[in-house]
């Protein structure tokens, strides 16, 4: 989002680094207020309720598990997993920052272009946006809940949780540096291949660790164990380790914030070569389409496959959950969770505001003589195929370690994939028609809807698809016919909702509102 040379970028002024840093921090406030001012009426109320809900859920996650009974020494099991969970937060934050081209924008690029926003302000904005991500929130809630559960009710629980919050902030700041660093590399000469090479090496290293059985010992021996111990020691008061860990984390966070600003500045000075290359790419003419639907499908498909951020996002979704499944040694009965995860992630890349793929071409497309329901059907087809392909990719990858499934397991996973994809597509199309947003998805840092709306969408999708995944996980233990039998009503319900949304889309008044919004 950095849009103009500020003095921190080596521009006109020669003000001290410190005064520029202060200015960068101060600039975040007006940008936040500007974003907030765009929320009016219902949207404003929803945003306030959403923020209060996130705050309430965080407090509950950090407090209520302390009241849970121990039960067969489960506290010991959770304790063992704490160092890995702390590492998991960093991993999720790094993947999120790297996949989004450095981090989410506090203000969309096209709106920010008129203001002298420094790269440091941009970086601080991305840091603020990072927690507005369901993966980050769930990881944080799980971690806070785990600490509360292991600590039990004690006066020092708050102190322990404060240290965990400090860890979350530090991990996010560190991840942001890595995210910017990856983007800087990607924008360099041969950067795409350098990054792909690094990812391949990481994959090979991960595969070696899994195959050799060294992954768990490595995670258990990670330095994060000191964070976990210090947080738990806080039950009885502040210890030397607590103070030392807090100081190290605080210092690391400050260094990471400053370093992130510097790397963000370096990124802003490099053009996004892969995006520019694709935007000026040429494509040979294909034979004329055989039908209206094929013609529409072609146009809809290019909107996805010729977009660097969408391709990158889909590739991450098709690979990462599969790799996690391999690392976690997930069995086939647990693989039913994956399609929902992938489908939700894919929809959150663009599907929840799917008409924005046409951008300013939406007005022209709507002036073409074609039944709007056919245009709707084409968009549904493309969403379904993209999400199914990504889901199949991740399940295939996960099956490398899970081995061959039984018939019931295979059918349960397949049915679950179809059900959650339809479920996600029907929700996405409904939201696309009900709440369109004018978004330029050229940048990997852009989201199809404002951050808080995205949190709402992602939590609803995560909740519903995880529930369906768990349900089919249970069905995978019984005869395969049950999976088919239960999949049918789910699929029919989604189809019914799609038809209903299609009817809304066919209404000229409703459609004109969507088209005018996404084309503006």
């Amino acid at each position: 989002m950095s849009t103009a040379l500020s003095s921190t970028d080596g521009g006109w002024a020669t003000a001290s680094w410190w005064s520029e840093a202060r200015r960068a921090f101060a600039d975040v406030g007006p940008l936040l207020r500007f974003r907030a001012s765009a929320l009016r009426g219902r949207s404003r109320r929803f945003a306030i309720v959403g923020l209060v809900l996130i705050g309430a859920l965080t407090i509950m996650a950090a407090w209520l598990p302390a009241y849970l009974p121990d039960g067969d020494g489960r506290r010991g099991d959770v304790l063992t997993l704490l160092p890995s969970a702390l590492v998991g937060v960093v991993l999720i934050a790094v993947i999120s920052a790297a996949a989004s081209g450095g981090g989410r924008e506090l203000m969309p690029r096209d709106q920010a272009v008129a203001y002298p926003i420094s790269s440091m302000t941009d970086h601080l904005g991305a840091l603020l946006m990072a927690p507005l991500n369901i993966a980050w929130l769930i990881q944080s809630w799980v971690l806070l809940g785990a600490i509360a559960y292991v600590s039990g009710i004690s006066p020092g629980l708050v102190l322990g949780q404060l240290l965990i919050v400090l860890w979350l902030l530090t991990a996010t700041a560190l991840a942001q540096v890595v995210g910017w660093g990856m983007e800087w590399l990607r924008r360099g000469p041969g950067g795409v291949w350098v990054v792909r090479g690094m990812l391949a090496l990481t994959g090979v290293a991960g595969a070696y660790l899994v195959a050799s059985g060294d992954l768990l010992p490595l995670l258990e021996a990670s330095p994060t164990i000191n964070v976990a111990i210090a947080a738990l020691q806080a039950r009885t008061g502040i210890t030397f380790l607590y103070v030392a860990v807090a100081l190290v984390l605080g210092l690391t966070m400050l260094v990471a914030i400053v370093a992130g600003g510097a790397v963000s500045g370096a990124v802003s000075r490099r053009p996004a070569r892969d995006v520019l290359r694709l935007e000026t790419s040429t494509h040979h003419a294909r034979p004329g389409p055989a039908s209206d639907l094929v013609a529409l499908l072609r146009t809809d498909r290019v909107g996805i496959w010729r977009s660097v951020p969408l391709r990158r996002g889909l590739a991450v979704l098709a690979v990462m959950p599969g790799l996690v499944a391999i690392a976690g040694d997930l069995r086939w009965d647990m693989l039913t969770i994956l399609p929902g995860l992938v489908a939700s992630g894919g929809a959150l890349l663009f599907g929840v505001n799917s008409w924005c793929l046409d951008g300013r071409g939406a007005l022209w497309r709507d002036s073409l003589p074609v039944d709007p329901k056919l245009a709707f059907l084409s968009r549904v087809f493309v969403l379904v195929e993209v999400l199914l392909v990504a889901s199949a990719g991740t399940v295939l990858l996960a099956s490398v370690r899970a081995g061959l499934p039984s018939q019931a397991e295979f059918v349960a996973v397949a049915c679950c994939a179809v059900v959650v994809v339809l479920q996600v597509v029907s929700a996405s199309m409904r939201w696309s028609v009900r709440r369109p947003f004018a978004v330029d998805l050229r940048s990997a840092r852009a989201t199809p809807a404002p951050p808080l709306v995205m949190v709402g969408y992602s939590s609803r999708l995560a909740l519903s698809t995880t529930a369906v995944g768990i349900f089919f996980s249970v069905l995978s233990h019984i005869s395969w016919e049950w999976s088919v039998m239960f999949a049918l009503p789910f699929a029919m319900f989604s189809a019914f909702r799609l038809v209903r949304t299609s009817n809304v889309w066919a209404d000229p008044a409703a459609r004109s509102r969507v088209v005018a919004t996404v084309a503006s």
Partner: protein
Amino acid sequence: MSPPLVEVQALHVRFGQVDAVRGISFSVDPGAATALLGRNGAGKSTTMRVLAGVIPPTDGLVTVAGHDLRTDVLAVKRLTGYCPDVGGLVPRATPWEHLQLAARLRRLHGWEDRARELLERFDLGAAAHRVTAGFSHGMGRRMSVILAAFHQPPVLLLDEPFDGVDPLGVEATMDVVADARAQGAAVLVSTHLRELAVEVCQDAIVLRGGAAVAELPAQEMTGERGAGVYRSLLD
């Protein structure tokens, strides 16, 4: 005398509390070109969007070649060619893919030669297979005019076709309008560039605050005197 191809009677368009168009009436005969003039927010683009079938009218009667827009919007879309005021291009498709889509949906056969000729005329021949996301504003405008005109529609709707377009592009657009008129099409050009509008159209309608404040021959809007007339109508 042939009946008008475009007839608009007491057109109202309301967005929530805002009246974008307030009771506009006009008609455009075959072979005629009418300019919609006015300041930003006067209701020009909204009127064009209604005629293109993209926005439904809140009230009033709009017919295109006898087809009522309210009841037969698909027929109206078949008869019109529309260049929107903003963008008008799908970002990741190439010009040729745009033309293929339009040709398929409009059931055109043997359209390729005319498409190539138009692309060359608008100096876009070399970019025919390049993704439009990388196009300049002017290139995008020129391509939008091609998309509106290449199927030779009976009603040509050009919304701000000269905006940010170089002199060669302006000339090519004027040729397109002249060709369309010669073939008996009704042309509507919405613009805030008076000089160009009066050069390409024989009638002009000046809009202000969503209402028509004047309907006059374009010739009366030419030169210094015309500028004064236009200026007085805008205030």
